[in-house]
């Protein structure tokens, strides 16, 4: 199957971002930031987020990784760069999306540069970035 610029990457959906998973992640990461495990700490901020914990940046990034790996294989990612314009909250349903920008060959390896983002139905794009992947596993 050939890949062309403009091709969409199949969506990857996280149906409900979990506060429990954030707590597990905080323990593994030894992350002291209470925004990830204390709903009262988030509620006390002047941000109007309510009593909902904020997903760790790497977890939001991981949804894009899951999308890319489901599409192009477990070893497909060569580089991923992510920015974080908005927060992901516990209880959110979010969808990882992407589109191929360019396809080229490096050292006999076919690669694709892609735009990737994490989208919320009402709040729009929460994370956005770029990924370079190898298409070898798709050939």
């Amino acid at each position, binding site marked *: 199957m050939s890949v062309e610029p403009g091709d969409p990457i199949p969506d990857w959906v996280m149906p409900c971002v979990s506060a429990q998973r954030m707590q597990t*992640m905080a323990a*593994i990461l030894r992350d002291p*930031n209470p925004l990830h495990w204390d709903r009262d700490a988030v509620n006390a901020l002047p941000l109007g987020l309510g009593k909902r914990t904020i997903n760790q940046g*790497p977890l939001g990034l991981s949804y894009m990784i899951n999308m890319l790996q489901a599409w192009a294989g477990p070893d497909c990612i*060569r580089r991923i760069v*992510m920015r974080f314009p908005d927060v992901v909250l516990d209880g959110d349903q979010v969808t990882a999306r992407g589109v191929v920008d360019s396809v080229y060959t490096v050292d006999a390896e076919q690669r694709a540069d892609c735009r990737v983002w994490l989208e919320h139905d009402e709040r729009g794009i929460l994370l956005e970035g770029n990924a370079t992947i190898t298409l070898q596993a798709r050939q």
Partner: protein
Amino acid sequence: MTRSATPDAAAIAALLGHRFPGGRYRIAHWENFLLTECTGAKLLPDGRVHPVALFHLPLAGAGTSIAEMFALGQAESDLSILIESYDWEMFQALYEDVEYIVSGSITAAERRHTAQGKPYDRIQFAFDVRAPDASPVARTTITWHYTRDTL
């Protein structure tokens, strides 16, 4: 952790070039299992580690921690850090029970101001992960903004 005063800009700039001790880190199966479950994915085949480990593996392997990185930049509080970007380059897949060699340093540290004139400090950390045979596995770059008097 709570601090109040905005640190001197020169103290932030002096962080440039700071090197972490460096060291080794091995991802056990239980750790990969839990990490992968947190992402909502299934375990990758043949003992591969989910790339989400490229956040904490470099920190732990280099001999630092989120708490120390907050402290180095004299964060006002644990709530005052904003993420500018994460940049993860992957040269080989990660595997469970492999002892990776990690080095890390601060590659940018400077005082900046928002469009509204509020100061913040932009600090960038870079980590190199190598296999036991010293071949490159990954390079990760974390760029955080240490906000001042914003919360």
